[in-house]
């Protein structure tokens, strides 16, 4: 099936993106983010979860957390391309919230068919969720999960669970007697212990979650197939978040080098500063174009979705690394301080760069698709 020329990004999608941009600009400017998450600079501080729960509730009330839930399950059923527009704006604001996790769980649940419907109804009712499937070594292959389902309950630990402390529900991949299953349960259920990680990124929380015989509902007995079909959208939306965040890094840095003067000129006059920032822009644009292409493939060309999503996340990961490095370096001494907002995005982007696979991880899988497995 061929893709529509405009990525299927129509009027409704444009409107959603524009209102999201406006919403975050009005309600969550960077100084508010800084005040919210950077009050304590102590590098030894214990893990914390800092977020604006009231503002999140507004997102829920706007229906933004159920955009990807199909209409049949009480949601909005918006295409991935439109959701990507919203997530790009969320990334631009670096808004701490469980939206990405909730969307990721949504796509996985949709891929579960009938088994996922009750869980999708929870999300449509405004509950936040996140995926729990990674092992202690950060292996992105869900078959490497350390969680096991036996005797009707979950056992073992899921690592690197994103925004875990903000979530109502967990979607867990666990090995079963017959393969791998996906399981849905409340984050506060009996037998679930959330152990928060002390992380660098101030705009997220992360945890490893211990399951000691926690009862859970099996939503799919074939987790690997369901996740395989959900991963392209998950990677693409994270890449969209990174594109938005990088645009903030770029514009903030451009503004700084346009005003700060050295040697009688604004820094941006010098090509040693100007050209790398142009390179950041060029990389952002390629990643952004690849994001909407991948999103559109998720919507209209499923057989190409994984291939294009690998491209988008690989490009976004490398782009984000470069945007991070130039944003701090071009700010000079001030960029090295806690008071400058640049570090908030630096840390979010470095986290995103690795999350769900870095550039070389995605390129290795892309090569297997395009070239064929290496002999």
């Amino acid at each position, binding site marked *: 099936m061929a893709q529509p020329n405009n990525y299927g990004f129509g009027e409704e999608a444009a409107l959603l993106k524009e209102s999201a941009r406006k919403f975050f600009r009005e309600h969550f400017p960077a100084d508010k983010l800084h005040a919210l998450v950077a009050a304590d600079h102590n590098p030894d501080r214990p893990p914390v979860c800092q977020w604006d729960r009231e503002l999140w509730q507004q997102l829920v009330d706007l229906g933004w957390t159920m955009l990807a839930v199909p209409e049949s399950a009480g949601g909005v059923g918006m295409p991935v391309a439109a959701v990507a527009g919203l997530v790009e704006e969320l990334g631009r604001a670096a808004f701490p919230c469980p939206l990405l996790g909730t969307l990721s769980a949504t796509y996985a649940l949709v891929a579960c068919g009938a088994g996922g419907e009750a869980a999708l109804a929870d999300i449509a009712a405004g509950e936040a969720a996140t995926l729990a499937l990674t092992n202690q070594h950060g292996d992105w292959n869900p078959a490497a999960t350390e969680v096991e389902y036996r005797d009707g309950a979950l056992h073992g630990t899921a690592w690197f669970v994103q925004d875990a402390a903000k979530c109502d529900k967990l979607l867990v991949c666990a090995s079963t007697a017959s393969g791998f299953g996906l399981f849905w349960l409340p984050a506060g259920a009996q037998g679930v212990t959330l152990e928060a990680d002390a992380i660098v990124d101030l705009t997220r929380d992360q945890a490893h979650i211990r399951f000691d015989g926690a009862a859970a509902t099996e939503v799919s007995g074939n987790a690997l197939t369901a996740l395989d079909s959900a991963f392209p959208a998950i990677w693409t939306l994270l890449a969209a978040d990174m594109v938005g965040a990088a645009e903030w890094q770029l514009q903030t840095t451009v503004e700084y080098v346009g005003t700060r003067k050295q040697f009688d000129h604004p820094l*941006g*006059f010098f090509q040693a500063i100007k*050209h790398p920032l142009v390179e950041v822009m060029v990389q952002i*644009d390629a990643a*952004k174009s690849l994001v909407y292409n991948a999103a559109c493939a998720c919507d209209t060309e499923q057989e190409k979705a994984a291939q294009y999503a690998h491209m988008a996340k690989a490009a976004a990961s490398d782009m984000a690394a470069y945007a991070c490095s130039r944003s701090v370096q071009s700010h000079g001494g001030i960029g090295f301080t806690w008071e400058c907002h640049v570090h908030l995005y630096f840390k979010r982007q470095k986290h995103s760069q690795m999350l769900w696979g870095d550039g070389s991880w995605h390129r290795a899988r892309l*090569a297997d698709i395009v070239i064929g497995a290496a002999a």
Partner: protein
Amino acid sequence: MSEESARKDTPEQAEFRTYCRQWLQANKPGEPTVRLPQSPLEIMTPEQLSYLQAWQKSAYDAGLIGCDYPVEVGGGGRKDCQKVANEEMLAARTPFLPNVIGLGMAAPTVFYHAREEVKAELLPRLFSGEDIWCQGFSEPGAGSDLANVQTFAERKGDKWVVNGHKVWTSLAHFAEWMIILLRTDKSHKYDGLSYFVVPIRAALGKGVTVRPLIKITGETGFNEVIFDNLEVDDRYRLDELGKGWQVAMTTLLHERGAGELQTPRAGGMKNKSSHTISSSAVIDLAKTTRRGAGAAADDPILRDKMMQQLIREEGLKQNQRRSRVPALLDHPMRLLLQNKLLASEIAQSLGSLALEVEGMSSSLYLADPNAPAGGQWPLAYMNSYGMTIAAGTSEVQRNILGERVLGLPKSK
């Protein structure tokens, strides 16, 4: 590509597409009897030129070139149809069009800035390829600093007398006409420039000398042009006196693929050199190139590099697609002004990667019977520097992007 676009066609475009497709099926030229160069800028022999000129003339006569220009100047009088013809010519894998500077740069500039009678005089033979055009911008002292042009035109009644020296002039040895940036006032750098079209072939030995320059690849196709009291009629001045810089921007905008008028494009015909155009060619090369006990395509580092290349190519393709989706653009020129920079640098990294895949065999050049792909990859890699240097170097492109799009202060 062609099927995908077909679904978005206006009625006029749809009808024209069918026509183009049928015409190409019946009239696409057969295999060339000469070795064709990798691009029009490397045309070396009259045999290569006449084969390609015959193709351009037949395509023009059929209405596939200049489609969107008005009938009065030799165009087809259609709306947004050049893009359709281009898609169909590329899909049909035709030879490329030889009059590349004429079509891509001279035609839009003449169309927007010349007098009506000059348009009608020059454009039909430009479109048909009977008159090859070249561009006289660069000089020994005016490369990236283009406004430093010194070739001088002095007014004598209704004539101008031109003296000076242009360099790096592709196709001048075949050209009938040249678009040229001249100094008409020595006291103002930018406002002292004026833009003309001047005859070349008709003036050889009578004020114009064309001398070949040999390129890094050993190929010709490149020239310097000396003007010694060449007389030019004032009617061949484009736009007002002193407006040369502004007119030159029309040329450069179209050269960099960011102009209003679609440039007629054809190509894709299978020949030895057509293998050097995308990462899929390098992937094929890697599959058949032995490295150690296996194939180069099994080497994890080369696999990573080939995927980086593939992703860059897809990124550029998607940029072009996104540039037509206004809701996904922050700045109207942001993607368009990246085209030239990206296309040239991607071609360069492709060539570089191919040489790495070939390993020691990349030392073998065109005449070597053991050279992989007939030695085309070292040739393509060296030629890619023409792309990153001509039409504003990559460094100049980054200045333009930094200043016009990011709004950074102008660099010296």
